[in-house]
């Protein structure tokens, strides 16, 4: 069967390099943003979130940057590993929306040894 992300833009990186995945969003009223990772045959898995009143948030090996001026979100993955290969989606959420999300287009990350 067709895998997740077959027609999505692909970012190819070497193992150990840093990866930057970008996302443009449209709704200036979004209260928070989330990055999800989706591996083939699985549902999306939460990576990290950021509130709209922040411009940067760091997790383990990941950093999310938010630029509200240009409605742009990025996910930086440090020292990319083969296990990071997946499709990555950004999603917008709204306070009071109770976890109802609007997803961006997605990017497939391919990590090569």
């Amino acid at each position, binding site marked *: *069967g*067709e895998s*997740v992300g*077959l027609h*999505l833009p692909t970012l190819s990186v070497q193992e150990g390099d840093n990866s930057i995945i970008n996302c443009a969003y449209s709704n200036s009223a979004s209260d928070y943003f989330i990055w999800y990772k989706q591996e083939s045959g699985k*549902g*999306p898995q939460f990576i990290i979130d950021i509130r709209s009143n922040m411009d940067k948030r760091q997790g383990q090996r990941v950093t999310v940057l938010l630029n509200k001026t240009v409605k742009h979100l990025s996910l930086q993955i440090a020292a990319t590993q083969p296990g990071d290969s997946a499709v990555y989606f950004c999603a917008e959420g709204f306070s009071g929306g109770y*976890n*109802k999300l609007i*997803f961006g287009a997605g990017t497939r990350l391919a990590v090569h040894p």
Partner: protein
Amino acid sequence: SAVISQKPSRDICQRGTSLTIQCQVDSQVTMMFWYRQQPGQSLTLIATANQGSEATYESGFVIDKFPISRPNLTFSTLTVSNMSPEDSSIYLCSVGTQTGNTEAFFGQGTRLTVV
């Protein structure tokens, strides 16, 4: 966190038939949602499953095509009615656990192929 089980995990169905997908959560949750993920694409919200009342559908989705039930706080079903090949997608259940918590949890999805 919440553990979500979807059944079936995949199915191949004849056009014109209907399929009901089940979503079971291991704890009571406030919100349950159904998403569609067409081949190679992102997720699109179909509807919010409301406990004890009719589901709230997003633009482009209607109850006659995608009837939803939510009899309690841990279970919901989505039916894909009168299927056509264009309905071939992954259907995903998602839950939100509490106000102020941004994380929405997803089931593993149901991969539907209509022939």
